[in-house]
């Protein structure tokens, strides 16, 4: 069974820089594979191996300017291929300057329909840069697939899937029919970092680039004008006076006040 993976080239938070006014200098920040998409590729590889299928990578370059981001983007896709993808279909379009989840899902859905239409599409639970967690549901809705989010285990059986969902307070096991879109958490597996040699080898795997117009899509409107970092100042509260018991009580009451803990 072929398995599709929607991969995002996210802003590298390790080197995130903002201008003095708080706006993010998007054009200068390198791209990196979105953390949980590694898990998605790894999981897809495992399923494809046990069902003799291919792993197809889909991606849409949402960060701009496309000409300056294209090399980074390609590296991200090569990395996904090195992690276990067999082939990749991507959209790189100079007219794009940012995207919101519904549009991204529409672009990915067009790619998926045009190239391979796998009946199972996996993606990370959220992107590391924007963290909307909404691509999987939008994508499923656009494709007309069923959707299961936050999977911490995934099994294919009898033409359907059995998924353990991590919903924080408890884990629920759901069964869904195929075709489906599944978003996975970081707990589902532990992907290895690809080595340079594996990435070099991935250069032999097909990577097909296309544009919005070739997919029959028009650019998203309105465009984003800028992104801003919201900085939260530390409150720097230091509890010093009192016995350990009193300090703990004080700390707990502070945390309750801040809404971190629930009584």
């Amino acid at each position, binding site marked *: 069974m072929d398995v599709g993976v929607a991969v995002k080239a996210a802003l590298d938070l390790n080197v995130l820089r903002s201008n003095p006014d708080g706006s993010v200098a998007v054009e200068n920040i390198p791209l990196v594979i979105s953390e949980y998409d590694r898990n998605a590729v790894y999981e897809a590889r495992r399923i494809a191996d046990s069902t003799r299928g291919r792993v197809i990578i889909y991606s849409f370059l949402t960060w701009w300017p496309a000409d300056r981001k294209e090399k980074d983007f390609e590296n991200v896709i090569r990395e996904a291929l090195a992690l276990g993808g067999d082939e990749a279909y991507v959209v790189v379009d100079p007219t794009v300057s940012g995207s919101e989840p519904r549009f991204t899902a529409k672009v990915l859905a067009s790619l998926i329909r045009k190239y391979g239409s796998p009946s199972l599409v996996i993606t990370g639970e959220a992107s590391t840069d924007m963290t909307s967690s909404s691509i999987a549901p939008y994508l499923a809705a656009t494709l007309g697939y069923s959707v299961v989010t936050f999977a911490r285990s995934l099994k294919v059986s009898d033409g359907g899937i059995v998924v353990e969902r991590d919903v924080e307070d408890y884990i629920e096991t759901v069964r869904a029919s195929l075709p489906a879109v599944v978003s996975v958490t970081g707990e589902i597996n532990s992907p290895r*970092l690809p*080595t340079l040699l594996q990435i070099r*080898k991935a250069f032999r795997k097909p990577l097909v680039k296309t544009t919005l117009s070739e997919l029959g899509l028009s650019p998203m409107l309105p465009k984003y004008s800028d992104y801003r970092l919201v900085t939260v100042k530390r409150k720097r509260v230091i509890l010093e006076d009192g016995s350990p018991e009193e300090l703990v009580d004080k700390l707990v009451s502070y945390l309750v006040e801040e809404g971190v803990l629930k009584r």
Partner: protein
Amino acid sequence: MVEEPGIEHFLFVEDIEALVYITLVISAAIFLYGLYRRVVSWFGTFPPPLPSPGRALRNIVVYGLLQRRVVRKPSTGGMHVLVFYGFIILFIGTVLRALEYDITLRFFGTRFLVGDTYLVFKFFMNIGGLIAIIGLIGLLLRRGGFKSPYLPDRPSDYLLLITLLVILFTGFLLDSIATLSYRLGWIGLYDFIGVALASSLEGLGLDLVGLYRGLWVFHMVLAQLSVALIPYTKLGHIVFGGIFNYAYARERHPAEIPGPEDPEAEAEEKGYIGVLSISDLNWKERMDLDACIECSRCTDVCPATASGKPLSPMHLILALRDLAREGYEGELVPEKIEPDILWSCVTCGACVDACPMLIHHVETIIDIRRGLVSKGEEVPEDALNVSYNLMRYGNPMGYDPMERAKVIEELSRETGVPIAEEGGEYEYLFWVGCQTVYEPANREIAKSLLSLLRKAGVDVAIMPDETCCGEPAKRIGDELMYVEIVRMNIEGFSRYRFKKLLVNCPHGYTVFKHEYKRYGLSLDVVHHTQLLSQLLREGRLRPKRRDRSITFHDPCYLGRWNGVLEEPREVIRSITSDFREMPRNGRRSFCCGAGGGQMFYEVKRGERISRLRMMEARETGAEVIGTACPFCRTMFLAEANDSVEVLDISQLLEAAVDEDGKA
């Protein structure tokens, strides 16, 4: 009988003389077959390609005849010297004897071991036998109680020593019977052992002729058998090590870790780089395996072993040798060798430096690491991270590359040392290096160094567009990444005109000095301790000497690998009258634990190497631990408490110069 001193050949055994020649042919055949098998296993062909004769001869003389490495450990090395020279003398004597009988007497009817010559000959044979016996007994006693815990201690090890002793004792017994029968009158003390034994044999009333014949056959067959078994036993080190491994010794500097000729092509062709199975080892690595004498000197000094990690260099070499000899064709790791063994290595080179047979354990370990990195399996996650970070950020820690430029600008601003410009010309180009740029505590090293150079009026500029030097990639086994980095740096260097490259990191020093030339760039590399000691000698820096107690930790990559031992000490002695050496110093220094990429990953077994070294440093009672490597400094800072300071040589010197307000 003979009128003047000389040999009575085949006394009492003329009728069975042919036995010597028969056993000789058999033992020679067994010996040569064993040798042939090994040579073919290294080179794949026979006869093997010849080494360069001058170098081969020099190595055999220096390391073999002069036993240079062997005597580094005076106790057991001394005993080995006695056995070695004893048997050399006996071997030469036996050959001379055979020459007289089988050549000069047989074909020309003349003897040369006669008269005074014979007496001298006899005396030397006594000495040879005696010192060999003393050495062997010493070695047996060592096994009785004074041996390293890592020394293999099997019955066969004793059997070997005892066999050699039996050969020597029976030789002396034969000698004494012969002396008794025809030379007691004139031999005197030239045969002091023979005469002494003869006098005690005389009164026993034995059938001396019968005894002689029996002993003769026993002695001769045992000696021939021992020679025949050389290639099959520990004695193999005589030929595989003492002749082959010396003659074919690596010509490059030991600090230069070689890599595949063309890693890209190798990756293309085999699908991986380095060593996955025995057949991937190169001929030199395979020869190394057979050269091992199992003396455990490598393991005795290995910081991984000492800290309870699974690596023991000797046992790794022996495990590989066993696999090679049994013809094992599968993958080595993890099937036969536990991955942690390879990842425990800090590449400190203590094993390489200690090995009397010139084995390069580190080269083999890195070659196997390359195989693992190629597969991306059995590699510590954090080590893979190093490669990944290098790929993305140009430094092994994954820090922001923009940060580097900022730090370099700051350094320039604070010290007044310019940043190198294209087109400018400088005496020294200073490469700051990742461990100094990114570790705030270590930036002080660069700051102190540059201030000192500024004060001394040195023409220096800071290299602005540096990345990783490649050392971590190389040591971790990511050859592709390493080559990519080297090429990039060579291009970077080409933009600047400078005479010497100045570094404060011995790891960068090593790769720039020894490993970049393979890619076409010969650099004159200077470590900052070298430059600082030179400035002191020239009187361009005049520190004030005080009595603060300082000890010095020799970084492996500076001291042992590169022999820079005196320079940092010169600097320390110039600033303190209380310099305290640690027990393990100089070439015998003990690693800080950060080498071989272990700054970035950890084999969490046993103790931390850095802790062991820190305890050693503390025991000197010194207030300051001097370092000359940012890796070492970081490790010690992590172990230090308030009672001891960890400072680089440049920081120490700057403090001493500042107070004085300079000369």
